[in-house]
């Protein structure tokens, strides 16, 4: 990107243009706090990840990241991120986990909050 296109200039491309105007995908049902991890597989079946796909992949390659954090880090609306994640999931480039809260976890959270 050239220098004048900085953060303050705003997005150069409208968010939904990034995803070809699509608003529906297999990422629709992703919970906001579902954790996304890179599978490490190489793209196959003719799928070419776009720049935003790449940004997500490099983010989740480092550590599991929640859907909401991905949207926040990429500064993209959630709906757009969901479509991008749906693409990546369909091509098995990411896996999505959702650990549920156990009694032990909740006790840990209570103690952690008290210690803040």
């Amino acid at each position, binding site marked *: 990107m050239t220098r004048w296109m900085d953060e303050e200039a705003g997005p150069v491309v409208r*968010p939904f243009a990034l995803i070809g105007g699509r608003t529906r995908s297999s990422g629709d049902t992703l919970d906001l706090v579902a954790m996304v991890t890179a599978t490490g597989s190489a793209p196959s079946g003719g799928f070419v990840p776009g720049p935003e796909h790449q940004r997500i992949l490099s983010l989740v390659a480092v550590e599991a990241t929640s859907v*909401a954090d991905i949207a926040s880090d990429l500064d993209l609306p959630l709906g757009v991120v969901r479509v991008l994640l749906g693409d990546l999931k369909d091509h098995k480039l990411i896996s999505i986990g*959702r650990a*549920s809260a156990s009694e032990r976890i909740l006790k840990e959270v209570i103690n952690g909050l008290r210690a*803040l």
Partner: protein
Amino acid sequence: MDFGPSDEPVALKILIAGGFGVGKTTLVGSISEIRPLRTEEVLSDRGIGIDDVEGVENKTTTTVAMDFGRITIREGLVVYLFGTPGQERFWFMWDELSYGALGAVVLADTRRLTDCFPSIDYFEQRGTPFIVAVNCFDGAEQYEAEEVRVALDLDPEVPVLLCDVRRRTSAKTVLVTLVEHSLRVLTASQP
């Protein structure tokens, strides 16, 4: 709910609900690292029928900024706070927000107590554990928590507490009260 492997990252979701201007954003900011989050949703325009053509959907998108905060308890254990949108036209977002939520804080202002009725109804119907936190605004008449409970016709097991969401210690107490309540609900539901 099951015990996962301890190295599996766990993310928990807490909702902050209540009427417009009741202090949801302030609460999220007092206790957590605020993060920017936008959601762009497609709404079908069900407005006045005069322009509607059968079979043609008249759609429009809207961008909504959400209150979103993160509290890292430890590596691999994060609590996320989401402010629920205050305006009625964003009700469609509530279902997805509340799905799998650990619980909800319903913030109340005693000068406009009825503002929190929709939130209370919603969480009661969904069976989401919730507490009512009365934000004590300067200049508002002070009430006891029990008076608020009666006025809101709450079940006896729903915790009600007074708070000042501008203060971190108070915001902390609110969240601890909620998670303790969620823990009670969780253990009560287990055989």
